[in-house]
């Protein structure tokens, strides 16, 4: 029974197909919001789904010199990493499907897996644009990963555990956005960096390097990388809302909170210019890391005082 429910969870609900569909819904909301902010109409509700279906139907062209194992395997790995992370995160307003002590670190690693796969894919295809895109992607990974992890660490310290379900139990009733505002801000902007949304989209700056690391991808491979991005979006949003915005309380609250966060992210996307990669790294290592370290310091002191 346990295996069957696990399989059902992994494949259909709440992870798996329904997660992909909800991810596409969120992606549509993001694109629609950005369009409305720019005084345009924006796509219709089924656009990301239609894009994915179209890409699956298209021919996949493999450049002559790549390693085929990596070329075909990396998109699958990226998507798999993103989907596996969903097992430990409270998505759709339900408790995580499974949990064990230390699964926060595992989840964050699994969420970095798509970015590393993109970097590796870019190196593998070794076209000029892909190489530069891959380098930028990995450089950006080093930039935002540490502050993002530290921002996630804030609630973990407050709850006194590395297990996501324990942390969400603690945050229910405690609105950590009020007590750790800096951590919340860094987490939200860190999520924008992870997803390579503007202003941190230097790795896929279309006016400089066409499509970055994914330039040579087409068809199924590209579709899987994109779907991995959508899944990452929703997992990141649910993680942040579970940690900072009063835990897990059901689907309706989940929708409201994550959509509010998405609104803020779209607004930030639209009003800020793309940063150059050296400016991104400079910004994160100067402001992001320092701010979140100050936050942690304050917290540790307060906790030590209280104890």
């Amino acid at each position, binding site marked *: 029974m346990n295996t069957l429910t696990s399989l059902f969870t992994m494949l259909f609900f709440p992870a798996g197909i329904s997660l992909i569909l909800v991810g596409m819904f969120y992606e549509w909301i993001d694109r629609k919001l950005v*369009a*409305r*902010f*720019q*005084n*345009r*109409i924006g796509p219709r509700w089924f656009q990301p789904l239609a894009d994915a279906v179209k890409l699956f139907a298209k021919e996949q062209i493999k450049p002559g010199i790549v390693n085929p194992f990596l070329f075909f395997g990396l998109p699958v790995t990226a998507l798999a990493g993103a989907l596996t992370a969903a097992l430990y995160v409270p998505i759709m307003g339900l408790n995580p499907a499974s949990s064990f002590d230390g699964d926060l670190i595992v989840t964050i690693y699994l969420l970095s897996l798509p970015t590393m796969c993109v970097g590796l894919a870019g190196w593998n295809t070794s076209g000029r644009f892909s190489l530069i895109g891959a380098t930028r992607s990995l450089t950006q990974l080093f930039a935002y990963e540490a502050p993002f992890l530290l921002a996630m660490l804030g609630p973990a310290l407050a709850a006194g555990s590395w297990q996501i379900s324990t942390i969400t139990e603690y945050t229910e009733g405690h609105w950590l956005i009020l007590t750790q505002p800096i951590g919340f801000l860094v987490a939200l902007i860190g999520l924008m960096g992870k997803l390579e949304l503007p202003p941190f989209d230097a790795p896929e700056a279309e006016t400089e390097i066409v499509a970055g690391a994914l330039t040579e991808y087409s068809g199924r491979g590209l579709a899987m990388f994109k779907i991995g991005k959508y899944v990452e979006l929703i997992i990141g949003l649910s993680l942040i809302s579970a940690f900072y915005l009063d835990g897990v309380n059901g689907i309706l609250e989940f929708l409201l909170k994550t959509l509010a966060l998405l609104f803020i992210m779209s*607004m930030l996307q*639209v*009003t*800020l210019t793309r940063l150059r990669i050296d400016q991104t790294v400079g910004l994160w290592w100067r402001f992001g890391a320092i701010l979140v370290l100050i936050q942690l310091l304050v917290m540790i002191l307060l906790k030590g005082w209280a104890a």
Partner: protein
Amino acid sequence: MKIGTMFKDVFASLFKKNSTQLYPFEQTPTPERFRGNLHYNPSVCTGCCLCVKDCPAKAIELVTLDRAAKRFVLKYHMDRCVYCGQCVVNCRFKCMGMSNTDWEHASLNKKEFTVYYGKEEDIETLLANLTAPDPKPTQE
């Protein structure tokens, strides 16, 4: 130095109507001077061919069926025309004008791009002459 200087525009546009026009369901009327397809009035034409001479794209051909009786047919290539309006300026008798309502050209059939202007019977005569095969020598 501020961050997000376009914030006001961006936020306000959530409440404003978007500026995309859903063509072809919404169409703004074209202004009066818009240079669309050429229209020709055969009754005033004298066959001076000034319009043909100065067309930059060789889009007009004037076929004279009978000069004395003023029977002309204007063959207009809609796809070659650059819509400059020089022919309209050149014509001294005002037989040419550029329509501002007739400008949508999309078509699946190339034949629609060659337009014959003139009196009905003149056009029929011209087309009959074009499509009729060479007369076979009559057998005696």
